[in-house]
């Protein structure tokens, strides 16, 4: 039992460190990203430059096969890269979804032309991809999407015409392509009537509208489709086989082990409490210990996951534990710290890199993170059903044609 890198891991880490030292810029504070302080378009341009550098060195997709521009590396190597990169200025919010989820799906279901045309450009940050899955009436119940795709003519190979609405689409405003889950047959049960496409986001009939979030910012979008034409050539998998393709995408989401949520940590809680001199209060001390146990416990759980990965297993439903605990814990910690500070903590801290602004950001975002990417309730279902082997939820729409299910 030990926490040290294996000789191969240590060597990889050394190589990564050397490359980062030669190519990356030092970080000035924890949330310091490439292009910070620049207007949105220049910030994106700076992010693309950094992405291209990474891609040229193979670090943009450590686990991808070399033929696609990756390093053919292991999940551990991917994590080692992320650990090292997090000490430097990097990018966040542009390329993760495309490279982490959309392109691996394309590589699994696309043809040779697709792979030649789209993979490299995405890897180098020249084109950005988004994921068009969730809808206003289908979040947790993803297979209940309604965006309708119809063949333009009733014949094999005909173009498709798509109408409907997607929601919570990260990055749609600057994306070039989107992975799109549609309903092609509403007369069969819900999972059977789905088909996956990818779509050019510049197509006529697509309108991207920012969603104004609870805290006043806009990071996500609604995307409206009105008579959008998609060539049959951009279909991934068979007609009616979209659910299987979507599951592949979601499985790749799980492979992004160790992605930081950017929330307040127990370590920053400790700094705050130590500075305030509150730790001698037994009630405060106990809350500090509770927070530490969860944060440190998740780190140790991840160490066990990595150990299993390095022995050749794949990340399973056990990974649900991370977000389930982290988001709730963040909400509790930020609320607790604000309680200690009193009413003054309601005043927005304008210094965006201060500890207090991080408490406030956490208080806002923890509410979102308990919902995004699997609600607390869905994650518990996953643990109960897939880890503990308990019965699946009763599905009253099971086997019923989608257009006959009460909506």
């Amino acid at each position, binding site marked *: *039992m*030990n*926490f*040290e*890198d*294996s000789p191969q*891991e240590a060597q990889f880490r050394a190589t990564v460190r050397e490359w980062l030292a030669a190519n990356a810029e030092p970080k000035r504070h924890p949330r310091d990203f490439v292009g910070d302080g620049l207007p949105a378009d220049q910030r994106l341009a700076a992010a693309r430059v950094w992405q291209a550098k990474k891609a040229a060195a193979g670090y943009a997709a450590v686990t991808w096969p070399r033929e696609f521009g990756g390093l053919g590396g292991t999940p*551990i190597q991917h994590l080692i890269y992320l650990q090292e990169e997090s000490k430097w200025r990097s990018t966040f919010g542009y390329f993760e979804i495309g490279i982490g989820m959309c392109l691996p799906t394309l590589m699994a279901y696309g043809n040779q032309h697709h792979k030649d045309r789209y993979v490299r450009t995405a890897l180098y940050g020249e084109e950005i991809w988004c994921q068009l899955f969730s809808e206003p009436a289908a979040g947790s119940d993803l297979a209940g999407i309604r965006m309708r795709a119809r063949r333009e003519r009733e014949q094999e190979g005909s173009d498709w015409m798509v109408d409907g609405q997607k929601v919570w689409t990260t990055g749609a405003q600057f994306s070039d392509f989107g992975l799109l889950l549609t309903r092609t047959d509403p007369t069969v049960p819900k999972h059977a009537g789905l088909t996956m496409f990818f779509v050019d986001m510049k197509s006529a009939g697509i309108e991207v509208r920012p969603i104004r979030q609870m805290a006043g910012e806009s990071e996500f979008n609604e995307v409206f489709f009105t008579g959008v034409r998609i060539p049959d050539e951009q279909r991934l998998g068979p007609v009616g086989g979209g659910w299987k393709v979507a599951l592949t995408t979601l499985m790749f989401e799980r492979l992004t082990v160790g992605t930081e949520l950017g929330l307040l940590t127990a370590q920053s809680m*400790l*700094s705050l409490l*130590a500075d305030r001199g509150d*730790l001698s209060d*037994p009630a*405060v*001390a*106990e809350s*500090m*210990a*509770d927070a*530490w*146990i*969860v944060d*440190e*416990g*998740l*780190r*140790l*759980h991840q*160490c*066990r996951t*990595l*150990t*299993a990965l*390095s022995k050749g297993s794949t990340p399973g439903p*056990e990974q649900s*534990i991370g977000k*389930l*605990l982290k988001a709730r814990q963040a909400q509790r910690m930020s609320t607790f710290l604000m309680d200690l500070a009193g009413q003054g903590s309601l005043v927005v801290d304008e210094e965006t890199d201060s500890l207090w602004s991080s408490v406030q950001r956490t208080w806002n975002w923890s509410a979102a993170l308990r919902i995004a990417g699997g609600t607390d*309730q869905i*994650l*518990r*279902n996953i*643990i*109960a*059903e897939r*880890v*503990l*082997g*308990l*019965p699946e*939820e*009763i599905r009253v729409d099971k086997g019923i044609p989608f257009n006959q299910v009460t909506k």
Partner: protein
Amino acid sequence: MNFDFSDDIKAMTAEVRRALERSCNMAEVRRCLEDGMFHPGGLISKPAWGVLAEMGVTGARIPEQWGGSGLGMLELAACAEEIGRVCAPVPSLPSVYLATEALLHSGTDSQRERWLPQLARGEAVGSMCFAPIDADGERLTARYAAVPAGAVADFLVVMSADDCAVLIDLHQDGVSRHPLRVLDPGSPMAELALNAVRSEPMNCPAGSYQGIRNRAAVLLAFEQLGGASRALDIARDYTLQRKTFGRTVASYQAVKHLMADVWVKNEIARGHAYHGAWASQTNDPALPLAAACARVSASEAFEFAAREALQLHGGIGFTWEADIHPFYKRSRSTALSLGSSREWKRRIAQLLHRQHMTIAHEL
């Protein structure tokens, strides 16, 4: 990164598990509990204790020269989980994790010579108290209100917070024992009154008091972890087989989510317990904090698992026949041995504060 037990240790614990499942099934546990309830004090599951001695668990950490197996903390920790899994009514904490460890770390040669071989064979039982020592020369007069395994222990180690310790042979004049009725008869206690008994000084290096408490906390955390995962298994099996309103009880979301929460707490406790075992084995500076986190997370996980597993049984869970009450009782008694979670949480905060100040100072 290799944060798991080795295949050798896993193979060893699999054998211990099989042997314990045979020798210490729930009928045996209930029999011991029943015995302990009506004849307080004297209880040990002889079949379970015999298996632990035979398989080298009681002497896991005792060097071979004294008849032990000469194994490390990792091996003993992994076995402790199996002891907890079967809820074995054996004095593992007072005798193996405390008294034996105290002898190993602070015993004189003659004390080791005298007790370690018997401990390894499971023929002697030790116990330990953490209390100030007020000895008049070599004669000690004291009263200890609740000594674990006090009715059956052959010797007692008393250690004070300033790292002084004495060993008392309990088979001598002046020792009187009063077995106590306790909530968990599987962890019996007795009041010991010592009247001018002979006490032998031990050689405690500085830091012994906290060191031994840290290591015992880690080992006990593994027992608690074993109990917590078994409680979840029992709840799962029961709710899968029981039907209500025409449905399997385990199919209700309220029930599923509760068990998911139990699993989550158990997983977190497992990470901390492993960390504690690693830090004990390597004597890493992280041990005090790792041990405290292991202690608190395992206590909380076990109590939550046992409490909710009982709840998921409905009325039958409150009966003597159901398998869950021994775990409910053990989860409470183990949460209080070595000090409550409250004390250990304050210790975590203290250690973190100290760590923070050191780092701040270095910067």
